[in-house]
């Protein structure tokens, strides 16, 4: 990826010129450049390679994102808009607590409890709340069920809409142009890229969740899983299965 100078030239300079004197974003940025160099070096070293997410993040660092975000944080803390401990808590909540294991528990419950499955398919939001999950980006949930005849696939063509309470934050590929552009027009081609080839007689239902409803796919229970309990079943369920790009 090319490194873009436009980003700083146009937007930043306009923003940084808004006001001078102490307490502005430009002052904050200038003040922390020196102290942050070492930190940026460490962050760059932690990047992987060869994939969209890591590459993009690396380019972003070359564009000075670590400094800009640090300056913005310092400014908003001083202004009383945000509280640093609350930021730590938000990161922790979505990095460690909320994730696809939540959705896997919902799926496993639906596989083992027919009455729960009915409630989940009829009105997903309260059924998911029964297991303790809900909130931001999952306020209005719909669960769609895969069957022998129907396969469901979820995308957000306009943005990155994703059911956070049950799946956590979305992976980079879900938010990126290749998936967002092709999932609606060529879902079979997309599924083939994920290693899934469906028979032509299987009906594919693509859910473009660009508005206010968030979708979770209920995958088919795998053959041979009859003896497993709910916890063992949950361990079989993947994030990709609940987006609809994997069988389970």
């Amino acid at each position: 990826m090319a490194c873009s100078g436009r980003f700083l030239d146009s937007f930043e300079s306009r923003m940084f010129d808004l006001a001078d004197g102490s307490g502005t974003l430009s002052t904050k940025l200038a003040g922390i450049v020196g102290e942050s160099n070492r930190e940026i070096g460490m962050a760059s070293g932690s990047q992987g390679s060869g994939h969209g997410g890591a590459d993009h993040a690396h380019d972003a660092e070359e564009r000075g994102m670590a400094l800009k975000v640090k300056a913005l944080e310092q400014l908003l803390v001083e202004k009383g808009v945000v509280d640093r401990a609350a930021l730590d808590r938000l990161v922790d909540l979505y990095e460690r607590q909320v994730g696809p294991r939540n959705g896997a528990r919902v799926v496993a419950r639906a596989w083992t409890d027919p009455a729960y499955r009915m409630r989940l398919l009829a009105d997903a939001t309260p059924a998911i709340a029964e297991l303790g999950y809900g909130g931001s980006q999952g306020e209005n949930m719909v669960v769609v069920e895969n069957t022998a005849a129907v396969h469901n696939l979820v995308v957000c063509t306009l943005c990155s809409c994703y059911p956070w309470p049950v799946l956590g934050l979305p992976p980079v590929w879900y938010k990126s142009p290749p998936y967002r552009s092709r999932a609606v027009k060529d879902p079979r081609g997309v599924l083939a890229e994920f290693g899934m080839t469906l028979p032509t007689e299987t009906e594919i239902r693509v859910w473009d969740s660009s508005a206010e409803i968030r979708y979770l796919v209920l995958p088919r229970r795998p053959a041979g899983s009859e003896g497993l309990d709910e916890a063992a079943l949950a361990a079989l369920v993947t994030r990709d299965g609940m987006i609809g790009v994997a069988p389970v």
Partner: protein
Amino acid sequence: MNSIHDLGGMEGFGPILREADEPVFHAGWERRMFALAAAAAYAVGFGDDHIRREIERVPALDYLESSYYELWYRGIASLLEERGLLGPGRAQGLTPAVAAADVERVWGGGFSTRLPEVRVQPRFETGDRVRARNLHPHGHTRLPRYARGKRGLVQADHGVFSFADSMARGDGPEPQHVYTVMFAARELWGADAPAADKLYLDLWEAYLEPAAEAGR
């Protein structure tokens, strides 16, 4: 707005690049940007509609070259600039900053745009034949280009929600029903699409007209 973010149906972006064992965040600044956006939106009162409006205004080449949280930075910084919050002085008239002890309760409660107490008569019901209007607004909209002018079937009525387009303009909620509309893949993509395949899209009532009215 007919900008680059409206990607549905396009080709030419290459293969889907997946990362094995992908971390939730790829750098420390992504963690901070995620949390900053969430906490600032809470205090200042930005909705997703506002942030998306700003991200959609990012020039196309920058949009494609930027990482996800870089776009969040641009969206949030631009909104803060608009509210005069990037200059000197303490911010006035905002919701007090969310405290760490309240984070789980607040985000666990969510920020639904559904308005269950507002009664609006629905214009459509399940099974109605509808057509997505051929609208090309300059501002934020959730009606993707690929669906405009296409005929579908109302699949569900999700009740009354605030309207993303008017919220993003700052014109208030304009409460109206949101429907799931089912489109045949062939209606959207032509005769080469598999006959049985379907696409489901959630659409506000303002995006829809009865199919019979189409062309008038």
